[in-house]
C-alpha cells in the first residue's frame, strides 16, 4: 500500500461486457450513468477498453462463443483488477442454466470477486456492489493474476500474427 494506492477508490474505471444475457442488466448499468444516479460522482467511468479499466463488470450466462473473449478481456486488463458478476445469469446461468450453449456463469471462466444478485439488480444494488468491489480492489496488489487452468487455457487464446 503505497501513496498512490490511496487514490484507487476515487477513480475506478469500468469495463462492461455482456456475455449473452437479456440486456436487462445492461439497461440498469446505463441508467446508473444517467443523471438520476450519476456514478461519475464517484469518479467511475465506463471506458469500454480493457487496457484502461479496473473493474470488469460482467453480465449474462457466458455463452460458448463468449468464453474465450471473456478470458482475453480479463487477461488484457492490467492488475490490480476486480471482476464483478452482475445479475442472476452471471451467477450460474440463471434461466439459461444447463442450456446447451452456456457455461453456467462467469465463475467457471474467470475468478469473480463480487456478486450482485437480482434479475435484474436495481441500480442501488449495482452501486452497492461497486463499493464492495472497490474495497476488495484496494486490498489487491500489482501481482499478476491468472485464469483458472491458466497454462492450459492460454494456448487456445493466441492472437495470430500477420507475419
Amino acid at each position, binding site marked *: 500500500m503505497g501513496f*498512490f494506492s490511496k*487514490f484507487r477508490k476515487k*477513480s475506478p474505471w469500468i469495463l462492461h461486457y455482456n456475455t449473452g444475457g437479456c440486456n436487462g442488466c445492461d439497461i440498469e448499468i446505463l441508467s446508473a450513468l444517467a443523471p438520476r444516479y450519476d456514478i461519475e460522482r464517484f469518479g467511475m467511468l465506463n471506458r*469500454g477498453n480493457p*487496457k*484502461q479499466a479496473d473493474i470488469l463488470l460482467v453480465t449474462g450466462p457466458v455463452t460458448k462463443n463468449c468464453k474465450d473473449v471473456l478470458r482475453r478481456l480479463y487477461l488484457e486488463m*492490467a492488475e490490480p483488477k476486480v471482476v464483478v458478476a452482475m445479475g442472476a445469469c452471471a451467477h450460474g446461468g440463471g434461466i439459461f442454466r444447463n442450456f446447451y450453449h452456456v457455461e453456467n456463469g462467469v465463475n467457471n471462466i474467470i475468478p469473480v470477486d463480487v456478486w450482485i444478485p437480482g434479475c435484474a439488480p436495481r441500480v442501488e444494488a449495482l452501486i452497492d456492489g461497486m463499493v464492495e468491489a472497490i474495497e476488495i480492489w484496494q486490498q489487491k496488489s500489482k501481482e499478476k493474476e491468472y485464469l483458472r487452468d491458466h497454462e492450459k487455457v492460454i494456448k487456445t487464446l493466441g492472437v495470430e500474427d500477420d507475419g
Partner: protein
Amino acid sequence: MINVILTILAPFFGGIVYGIERVVKARMQRRVGPPLMQPFYDFFKLMDKRPIMIHSLHALMGIMYFIAEWFALGVLLLGNDLLIAVFFHVIAVLSLVVGASSVRSPYSVLGALRELMHMISYEPLMVLMVVALYLVVGSFDIKDILSYDGYPILKLPFVFIAFLLTIPMMLQKSPFDVAEAHQEIIGGPEIEYSGPFYEALYTGKWIEYIYVFTFVFLFGGSHYWLGALLVIFAFLFVNLLDNSTARLDFRRMVKFAWGFLIPMAAFNVILLALFE
C-alpha cells in the same frame, strides 16, 4: 515570470482545467459530476497500475507525445514566435501517430489516420490565425501581442469564430471528436495505452488545453480581462457544443474546415489587409 510558472506547472493547471470541464459538463447534463480534482485521482490511480504494453516503441511514443506537447507549450509561452509554436505542435502529432499506427489494432490505426485528418483541418487555420494576429499587431511575438493596446478581437471576429470552431478539433470534442470517438473506436490513438503509459497521453491532453486556450487568450491583446473573458466564453461554448452535438463523419469535418472555416478566416484577413 508568469509564463515560466505556467509552463512548468502546465500539467497541473491543465489537469484543473480538465477537472473543471468534467464538472461543467456534468452540470450541463444535470448531473453532480466528479470532484474537481478527479483528473489527479485518475492520474495517481494509473500510476499504481501494473505496466502492460504492446511493445516498447508504442509505449515510448506515448511518452514522447507528452514531452513534445509540453515542449510545444514551452515554445509558445517562453519563445517569442507564434508560428514556430504552431509548427512545434506537429512533432507531438508525429509521435502520437507513429505510436498509434505501430500496433496492429484496427482501432488504433484508424484513430491515427483520423488524427491526420484532424491535422489537415486545423493546421492551415492555425497558420492563418497567426498571420491575422500579425496583421493586427505587427509582430509574431507573443509579448508584443499581449501588450497591444487595441482589441484584436474586434478586428478579427471571423478569425476568432473560425478558431472557436477549430477548438473541438484540437481538443477532441464533439462534433469533431472523430479521432477519439469513444463509442466508435474506443479512444483511437490512445486505445492501446494502459497504466503509466496511458498517463502520458492523458496528461498530454491536459497540456493541450493550456496550449489551445493560450491562443484564445491572445485575442484580448493587452486587455487581460478581455482575454480571460474570451477564454471562459470559449471554454463554455466548446463544452456546450460538446454536450449538444453528435459526432460527424471525418469527411464532414474536413469539408467543414476547408469549405467554411478557412475561407471565413481568409476573408477576414483579406478585409484586414485591404483596409490597413
